[in-house]
């Protein structure tokens, strides 16, 4: 039996955050707007808000990722939630406990939200399909499928620099085949109305029929970068050299590595993004990574505000507060 979009409730509000695909532009904009208010809070001396006080958030990581886990932990703590970090690969599954057993046990401890990182595509959907009704699931990266919070923080960064999505030309460069980040970026960019999204990679790093996602395919970096406003570089895993996908890091850098010379093909005000960590000398030159057009560190800062926004929206904190405010206004009017 087919399931509909389990990410939104019958009122169209965010319930789980699993993938960008299927979310409306208004939901994405609401997340970006909410993140904007949290970004301002982060710049203040006291950064903590009581919005999720009394809630328990579990970082359920089935594959290691210190960076992503830390940003989720920090976001949850800034919202005053209690945070539990569980590295599942090192504990229960090695004892033969099934994924569903792990979930049931955590649910029995009255947790309110699972932030899930898993090596298999679809894992976050699977968990969302089986959690108790009061639990929300946020996908912190599943296989090659989706990394939606990363995509939203990228959109947040783009919006802060470029304002209007409706006139942009964006290039995504590198290992699209294995990249959950790229898939989520593509969905986010097309949903927000970016008229031209390009992917630039050799055939071996492009999934079949990628153009069906609404992108233009380029194999030549210089040609692909011509007149772009935003360049989103992807991380290249070193093991790709062993799978006959690429001949060598040197050749990859020669053809697809971002240098000042290749950057000259883009618009002068181009911004350069990367989900991190960067392989310097493979994906890009240090001069580019640390140069004036790089917004890579800003992406990291924005990650906290964006994750705070997604957590509050999925937990219905802001919508409920807004509803209460509207009800109060209505009573006063009467």
């Amino acid at each position, binding site marked *: 039996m087919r399931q509909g979009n389990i990410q939104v409730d019958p009122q169209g509000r965010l319930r789980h955050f699993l993938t960008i695909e299927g979310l409306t532009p208004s939901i994405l904009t609401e997340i970006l707007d909410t993140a904007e208010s949290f970004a301002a809070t982060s710049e203040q001396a006291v950064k903590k808000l009581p919005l999720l006080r009394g809630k328990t958030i579990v970082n359920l990581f089935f594959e290691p990722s210190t960076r992503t886990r830390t940003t989720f932990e920090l976001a949850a703590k800034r919202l005053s939630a209690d945070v539990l970090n569980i590295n599942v690969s090192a504990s229960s599954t090695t004892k033969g406990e099934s994924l569903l057993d792990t979930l049931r046990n955590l649910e029995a401890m009255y947790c309110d939200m699972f932030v899930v990182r898993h090596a298999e595509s679809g*894992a976050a959907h699977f968990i969302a399909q089986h959690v108790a009704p009061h639990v929300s699931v946020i996908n912190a990266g599943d296989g*090659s499928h989706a990394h939606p919070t990363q995509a939203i923080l990228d959109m947040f960064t783009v919006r802060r620099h470029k304002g209007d999505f409706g006139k942009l030309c964006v290039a995504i460069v590198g290992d699209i085949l294995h990249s*959950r980040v790229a898939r989520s970026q593509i969905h986010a960019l097309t949903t927000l109305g970016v008229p031209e999204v390009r992917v630039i990679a050799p055939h071996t790093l492009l999934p079949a029929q990628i153009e069906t996602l609404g992108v233009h395919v380029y194999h030549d970096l210089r040609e692909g970068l011509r007149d772009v406003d935003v360049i989103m570089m992807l991380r290249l895993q070193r093991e790709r050299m062993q799978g006959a996908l690429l001949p060598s890091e040197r050749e990859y850098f020669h053809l697809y590595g971002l240098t000042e010379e290749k950057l000259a093909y883009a618009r002068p005000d181009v911004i350069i993004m990367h989900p991190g960590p960067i392989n310097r000398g493979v994906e890009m030159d240090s001069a580019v990574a640390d140069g004036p057009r790089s917004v890579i560190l800003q992406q990291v800062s924005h990650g906290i505000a964006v994750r705070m926004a997604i957590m509050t929206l999925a937990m219905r904190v802001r919508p409920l507060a807004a509803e209460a405010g509207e009800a109060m206004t209505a009573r006063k009017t009467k």
Partner: protein
Amino acid sequence: MRLRISGGRVIDPAQGVDKVQDVYVAEGKIAALGKAPDGFTADREIVVRHQVVCPGLIDLCARLREPGQPHKATIASETAAAASAGITTLCCPPDTDPVIDTPAVVELIHHRAAQAGTARILPLGALTKGLAGNEIAEMMALTETGCVAISNAGRPVTNTLVMRRAMEYAATHDLLLILRAQDYWLSHGGCAHEGKVSTRLGLPGIPESAETAGLARDLLLIEQTGVRAHFGQLSTARAVQMIGRAQHDGLPVSADVSAHQLHLTEMDLGHFDSACHVSPPLRTLRDRDGLRKGLADGVIAVVCSDHQPHDPDAKLLPFTETEPGISALESLLPLTLRLVDEGVLSLTEALARLTSQPARILGIEAGSLAIGKPADICIYDPDRYWALSAATLISHGHNTPFLGWEFKGRVTHTLLGGRLVYVTDSQ
């Protein structure tokens, strides 16, 4: 026991029969059609007006999970499910545990089938020892014990020389090979058709060439060795074209398709629906239409179930970690009959692909209501609507994407060797 089945529409594709007439059964065999033999007095009469009486169905590929995985299913449970679906003969591939590569395993299966007594089981013997693809198995010993054909199940023989030797040996003894066309390296690690859906979901893909490259190799070796070969569970339109071309060139090859491949496509994966995780994967709409065309043209001779019952835990995981396969015995006939309603096949053609054609390929005494043949009979009500539900599935495996589907055509009686092995509750 002498039996008269009266008033039904008898359809026997093997004889070209489609007529309302009575069927007479004596001593487990068909005694006559239409007019009673001289001196025939029935001990029992089954009145089946407005129903179709056809040969019991023959399923070329059904995993029964025994020996080896009784937590998923048993020979008793699955032959009971088969009987309820009008299937009287099942071929079980050799990827049991232990593998069917010794006569002892064949005898065990026959013993359990006899104990269950609700369907005939024809084991397929292993092509290579342990299905490992390194050494050829004792094919003759296996066929002498009762294996009807030789197969490596879904395990690819990666070593082309071993495959050539296996074909040469099988050809020497005129054995039938049942093969799955696949290139190990191209399909390895994949779990969905490589295309727009696998790209969208980030699932490792299995390209069309995994099937066609494997098929091309095997066809070249068949041409060289002259072995009789049947390709099971085709999934791509291109492979159908290649089989058609090989048949045109006179190669002794035939093919089947799983019923689910004729109705589902990659789009049915939706948001990681593990019930649709099958091997070979669900392909594109173009492939589905190509398979249907191949079936209508006769290039594909048989529809099989590719029945693979699983325990619930096998499907309660992230998509890539789930086990492939559908519990499919009970949807085989209704999915094939749906092709008649959709104008793909005539009713006689559809029933031929479930009865006379698999019997012809295997060279067995079944799949026909000719006088003297075993009285393996399926009777179904062509006008009865019913819905497939977990509550009514007899198979121990409830892993099917067809739960909730409404079907037309319900089996009411199944006879095996003249013995009633299934009667629907409402009869």
